[in-house]
């Protein structure tokens, strides 16, 4: 079946593989098709994916060597990543969803979040929350599940604050922040 750009499915896969290889090579210091395992997150994300830390760990389990060497080889990474891109896993977060997320943290709906509040939320180690929001289930089986958070490191927090924080109000005016940060996320995968 030919796509609208005249590319057949094989062509799509070939192009995806080239793109993955390119991204991989940018982080490949020695030119020997290995990258430090700590860079895999950056590679996956720069290919247009938005995995959570948990999802990333799952991915790593698939691409690491049997005996972890601290390195990931392109050979193992390529097929796993290709599938992720073809399946469109970990897809981008639309701007409005992001806005809702910030609004959820803004209790007073004031349009901003104070520095302290933001730090508290971003560095939260985890939270206990009902496993079900179904009122019946809740009433009958009062169970809490612990969701591990994905807290920012000190560095990440500092870096986010440096661009997000308005020094005059010591708060993050999230609408402005979002529009400043949203990059042109054109989906450049062939259809």
């Amino acid at each position: 079946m030919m796509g609208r750009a005249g590319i057949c499915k094989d062509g799509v896969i070939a192009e995806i593989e080239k793109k993955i290889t390119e991204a991989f090579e940018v982080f490949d210091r020695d030119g020997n098709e290995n990258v430090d395992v700590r860079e895999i997150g950056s590679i996956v994300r720069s290919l247009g994916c938005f995995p959570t830390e948990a999802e990333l760990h799952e991915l790593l389990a698939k691409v690491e060597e049997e005996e972890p060497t601290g390195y990931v080889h392109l050979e193992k990474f390529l097929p796993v990543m290709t599938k992720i891109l073809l399946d469109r896993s970990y897809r981008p977060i639309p701007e409005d969803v992001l806005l809702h997320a910030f609004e959820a943290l803004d209790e007073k709906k004031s349009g901003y979040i104070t520095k302290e509040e933001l730090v508290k939320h971003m560095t939260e180690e985890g939270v206990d929350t009902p496993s079900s929001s179904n009122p019946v289930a809740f009433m009958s089986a009062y169970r809490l599940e612990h969701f591990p958070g994905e807290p920012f490191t000190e560095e990440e927090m500092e870096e986010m604050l440096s661009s997000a924080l308005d020094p005059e109000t010591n708060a993050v005016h999230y609408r402005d922040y979002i529009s400043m940060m949203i990059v042109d996320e054109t989906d450049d995968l062939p259809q």
Partner: protein
Amino acid sequence: MGSGSSVNANYKYSLQKSENAFKAAVLIQRWYRRYVARLEMRRRCTWRIFQSIEYACEQDQIKLHNFFSYLMDNFTPSSSKERDFISRMFISGESFKEAELEKYCDYESLEVPDSYTGPRLSFPLLPDHATALLEAFKQKQQLHARYVLNLLHETRKHLKQLPNISHVSTCYSEEVTVCGDLHGQLDDLFLIFYKNGLPSPSKSYVFNGDFVDRGKQSLEILIILFTFLLIYPKEVHLNRGNHEDHMVNLRYGFTKEVMQKYKLHGKKILKMIQNVFCWLPLATMIDQKVLVIHGGVSDTTDLDMLEKIQRNKFISVLRGKKRKESNRNVEVKEINGESQAEPDSAGNETMSSLPSQPRPAQAPSMTNRVEFSRWVRQTVQEQIEWCRKLVDISDSEEEELTCSSLVSLTDLDGPCWTRQEEWKQILDILWSDPMPQEGCRENTVRGGGCYFGPDVTGNILEKYNLQFLIRSHECKQEGYEFCHNRKVLTIFSASNYYEIGSNRGAYVKLGPDLVPHFVQYQANKTAHTLTMTQRISRVEESAFRALREKLFAHTSALISAFKLYDKDNTGKITLSNWATAVESVLRLGLPWRMLRPQLVRSTADGMLEYKSWLDDLAMEQRSQEHIQSSLLEVIYRNRSNLETIFRIIDRDHSGLISFEEFHQTWKLFSSHMNIELTDDGINDLVRSIDFNKDGNIDFNEFLEAFRLVKQSQ
């Protein structure tokens, strides 16, 4: 249910809220991490762009030598005027014997007027002179030419006494500080002195070469370093770098800087500096355990030979390479920007081969004896000059090259062979780069030295009982970097080298335990006030501007390459093919698919309309519409070489060449490049700048006219 249920409802509500808040936080984190990762990718791509363009520029040197070889080997001058012009290009300036040099670069006759408010030096120099100089340069003052020349004379006298390899011991002053490339960036030197202290009997310094070129205050750096060298000869050590070479200076800005600052005496100053550079030591040894050299080593590096060489014989270390006849067409096409399958660089050319000899021009008829003997003498003279040019050796006081010794020289073995080996030793020390793979191969990117692997490092360390090597020569993001299992340390002291915010500079301190301690810095206040995003964006902009210029310069070749994927002539190609085609032409080894969003703004149905894309690139050069586009491309691709050629012709360093010389240069160049260039075409070039300097052309102005206009913010 009464009040119980409302309490539960409240509780449930607040739990729900915190669950939402938590999920929101995780979502934001997810998004933010993706943003940072993309930024990191952009940062690395930007770095790659700068590096590949920098090294591609060094390949210009090879192209330049090809041009000169072409002139020597293949070009038949159509007139004696043309031949004269060509031979002038090869005489890079008179070589001076020692006594003549002193006389030519005399400073004592230079009067320093009372109105001069800058520092006044007297010899022997004292620490107060150094502080006065530092202060003066901070105030942007200029040292009077008399003192500059005096300083250079004294420096030369001092350097002549030094061995090729300096020795430093950490038992005299507790620590040794090693600095890498400075490249004319005076602010970085000030920062280093501020953070680390000035050189003194208790503070030793090693400066590892590349003091000049690229930055705008190379001369000030030299003056300061030479001053401290003379005040604290035991504590201050300088190594020669590959930029301490007048041939390199012609291209990378130092020559220009000196001539602009010293219009009257610049030529003398340059001549002295040329002679000071060749007396700089080649290496420094710390505690007999750490070898400090500018570039690196090779599998033939021999410290014993290095110690014995007459280092001052090698004024310039640059040289052309022998080209096999069959390769020539390949190279001409490559220069013209057409894609070619690259011959395997690992095998073919060896560093020890020499350029072929000049073929004498047509001999005049034998009937006119006077004419003939003049021709013989001239031809022989040319042969001698040519051989001298091979290693660019100065007039030796001992040897007298006579006609009889010419025979052995034409043999190109014998005396030149030893020079060969010596030359290679120096070239390797100054130009080599480490590579991750084992082995040792020719450094084809830079056109000199080699790439050396961890095994080569291991062998050198073992052979001479060393612990590790310190070298510079390559810009590093953090100012320093280890490789070869921490046996090779690269130290680079020019921060913001590519652009403000591009990298930090660093210096390293070693105590008696020889454990390195690093200090990093970045010499630009604005860099600190920018956020990470802003810093990266700014450097990125600069990189892409340079990249777009390169793309523009290869317009014709790109169109041909695109057409290969557009057999139906629709004017469109897929983005995938775009990436492949661009790499095949530019050969920069860049991740084009990653860079595409910044280079290609719009597509039609996922396809690129390549003609209009190229037109957009050309839009930035609107002012030069009257020049034929293929010529425009040639200028862009070869601007660096053209500049160098003009500078060579401009022997009195005035910045001007005659219209006639300009014309001649273009005729030769276009012949070499196989492009059509009529007299009208050359006139169009001349018209591109407004010149009216008594029939002379300011070539700096000319070349400036061919820089892509900066994109507005």
